């Protein structure tokens, strides 16, 4: 277990936690790569320097399989499995790039961006912005529908804020609070489009059971949860007057 934690690297996000099983060899886009059994296809792709775009996955948390941008093709398998939840197998041949995969990822990204503040797309440096770069999808064809763009910002914590307008409900914060910190202060409240991140019983972060360890902030791929110290003169939404 701890040898797996020690395999984490600061400059690389393998997407799923490193494992220490027996070596398994597979190919990623034709490149042979050997990783420990129990590793995900996503981790193998990162090892092969063929990193797959991802949003809900990060190597400090167990795989979750919700964001659908990490889809790959695997020879001999139907469909487009999520690379984060698919364990490696010997001899597996994985394809991380194809026109079909690009189209699928673009479709998913357009849906995410349809409920993301448009003014915050250029100039950002979050993981979401990296995926925007990687997929080349920076806009969406949809009109203004139901959205979370006016949901109030929670600035109660002295150190970080939560802007639900930027939240893609990937659950990384919730899982970090559980798996890394072990406090279980966060949850996803509601179902479907109404689902949202909530602290304790839908309370402001400061009044909740949150212990402000910062694991959720570190895990957030969209800077919906973000350090206040990165803003000069306080936080203002781009579209606010």
């Amino acid at each position, binding site marked *: *277990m701890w040898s797996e934690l*020690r395999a984490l690297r600061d400059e690389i996000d393998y997407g799923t936690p490193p494992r220490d099983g027996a070596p398994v060899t597979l190919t990623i886009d034709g490149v042979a790569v050997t990783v420990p059994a129990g590793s995900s296809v996503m981790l193998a792709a990162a090892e092969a320097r063929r990193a797959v775009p991802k949003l809900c996955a990060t190597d400090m948390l167990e795989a979750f399989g919700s964001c659908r941008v990490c889809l790959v093709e695997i020879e001999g398998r139907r469909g487009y499995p999520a690379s984060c939840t698919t364990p490696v197998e010997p001899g597996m041949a994985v394809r991380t790039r194809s026109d079909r995969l690009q189209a699928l990822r673009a479709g998913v990204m357009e849906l995410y961006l349809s409920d993301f503040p448009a003014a915050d797309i250029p100039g950002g440096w979050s993981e979401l912005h990296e995926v925007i770069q990687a997929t080349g999808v920076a806009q969406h064809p949809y009109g203004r529908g139901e959205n979370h763009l006016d949901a109030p910002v929670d600035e109660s914590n002295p150190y970080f804020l939560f802007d639900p307008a930027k939240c893609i409900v990937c659950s990384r914060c919730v899982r970090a609070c559980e*798996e890394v910190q*072990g406090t279980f202060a966060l949850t996803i409240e509601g179902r479907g489009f109404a689902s949202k991140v909530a602290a304790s019983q839908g309370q402001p972060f400061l009044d909740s059971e949150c212990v*402000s360890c910062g694991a959720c902030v570190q895990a957030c791929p969209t800077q919906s949860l973000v350090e206040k110290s990165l*803003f000069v003169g306080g*936080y203002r939404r*781009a579209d606010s007057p």
Partner: protein
Amino acid sequence: MPIPRKPERSVVTTCAYCGVGCGFRAETIGGRVVRMVPWKEGKANHGHGCVKGRFAFDYYDHPDRVKVPMIRGSIEEPWREVGWDEAIAHAATELKRIQGTYGRGSVGAVSSSRCTNEEIFLMQKFARVGLRNNNIDNCSRICHSPTQFGLQATLGAGAASQHFDSILQADVILVVGANPTEGHPVFGSMLKRRVREGAKLLVIDPRRTETVESAHCLADVHLALRPGTNVLVLDSLAHVIVTERLHDESFIRERCHWNEFEQWAALVGHARYSPDVVGPEAGLDPEHIRRAARLYAAGPRSTIYYGLGVTEHSQGSTGVMCLGNLALACGHLGREGVGVNPLRGQGNVQGGSCLGSWPHMLTGYRFVTDDAVRGSFERDWGIELDPEPGLRLPNMFDAALAGTFKAMYIQGEDPVQSDPNQNHVVAAMRSMECVILQDLFLTETAKFAHVFLPGSSALEKNGTFTNAERRVSMVRKVCEPLAGLEDWQITVRLMNAMGYPVHYDHPSQILDEIARLSPAYEGMSFELIERNGSVQWPCNRKDAPDGTEVLHTRSFPRGRANFMLTAYVPTQERTSDRYPLLLTTGRILSQYNVGTQTRRTGNLAWYAEDVLDIHEADARQRGIVDGDWVSIASRYGSTRLRARISERVSQGTVYTTFHFAQSKANAITSDLSDWATNCPEYKVTAVEVVRMQARQAADRAVAAEVSA
């Protein structure tokens, strides 16, 4: 501004708060630290952090920081700002004058566990070559000195036997007198992770802490003992183990002395320590004692983590020995997932212990009275050293009151707020002719100082810290020292001014000197730490070139380990009709020790004052409701706090923290201390709590106390 500013530069360094020693990337914009991001390659934290290390860094450039040296003739006079040269010259002149008048032993020094290994080492060198005596002590005197004594006596090494990650292989985790989820939060998260994976959790603590019960983490047994009965209860666990023959005979025969085990077993096996006798005395159900003992003995991998709840007692050293004995008896040493591990409070308090900042010991816990050891230092330093052990910190205060101790050089410590029996410490401070204080802020102790040397925070210097798992990690300079000098540079200047010429270009040269003079650090160098990320001592070129993760795997430092006899002797601090409650003190998550740093950050949002936790029944008897101001009086002094009705304390026990100077928690603590090491008995004070009629009454009480 909707898009966050992107940090321009980042430097990997080690957190300056607790003894977990998390690795962080300190990120800056325009030279100012804007964010601390947990370092995923930090072997103590694996990318996790807590509210202190992660967020509470703003103290470092708080407006209260003193950036210019200051001196004054007496503590009644206002401070006068001077240049570094004048301040250093003045301090040295005063030290020499006082030594000329009152003798060589009339001055001393105190090192800081928030400073680097290199700085601590230089402080003890300063005392030995600059002051020419051994009057040097460090704050582990008041926290983990019994650890060093008790573990040295039993296991032969006064430090944690494991690395933190080892807990992920434990089947049974025994936590004694510690609350890691608040005091050592990142390790606490690791502990909870292991409990969620199915490990059994046993907690011995008078309070129902968050470690005992929180989301998806519930102790299998919680022994909420009466404060002061640690040794009694630990001996009772041992009683169950030896009388039910749960011990590991082959381990004991192979790794210990069988006759010592027999003597020990005879002592703890006596009916005196039967759970049926101990239970009522310690306020416990005898069955719970039995259950805890059986679980611990059964393992198969059982580990012990403990904190100041064990050490800060009149039998603190005995309590530590009890833990060593338990692990030896059950063979829970020398493997992954087992061991005995102190959770150390300050970031570098392990370094404080290792590096010779003791009146009787040089680096590596070797006696100053040993001619061969002293000789090796004398040859390296080119100066004859005093063979007589010096004064311990509390003895320095006693000697000050007796008129024989007149000056002190204190680096990064605030004894007036942190040490026990505050009135006594204040009187001692007032009786000194020259107190030289090196710190970031004008602390409580600064009120009694004559020379103030502005120090540097851990973000402003290079060096190393040694955490609670013996891990030496790099502290890297993120920004320039606000007052111009790193702390080690100040000590070097003072050493030179005292007439001992020495020069270092870089702290790496100081670590080289440490390595030369200390067996456990023999193989350490900045280069090795840079290459490996961190290194756990013992580290030596021959046997352990990359350090040692788990101690005692094949043998103990003395070959075999020793069972120590641990008869229970109750503390002299007793409840009475006048003082019927027992006060115990501790820390909470968002504040850190005396609060010098955290009180100057946003962490006040969670905890803006110390409060007194009191059981509902005790409160009702005294007409106290939640939020009332109450006065707390002991045989030593009194203070006032706001009361909080709490289920975390048992009836008969009250609890407070000591983070805020104005709450004067240490005005009431006793001057009783550990029989072996003088570690103060912070954890047990008999008190009475009385509701204050009105706010004015409270103010009057304080005014009276201040003028007294």
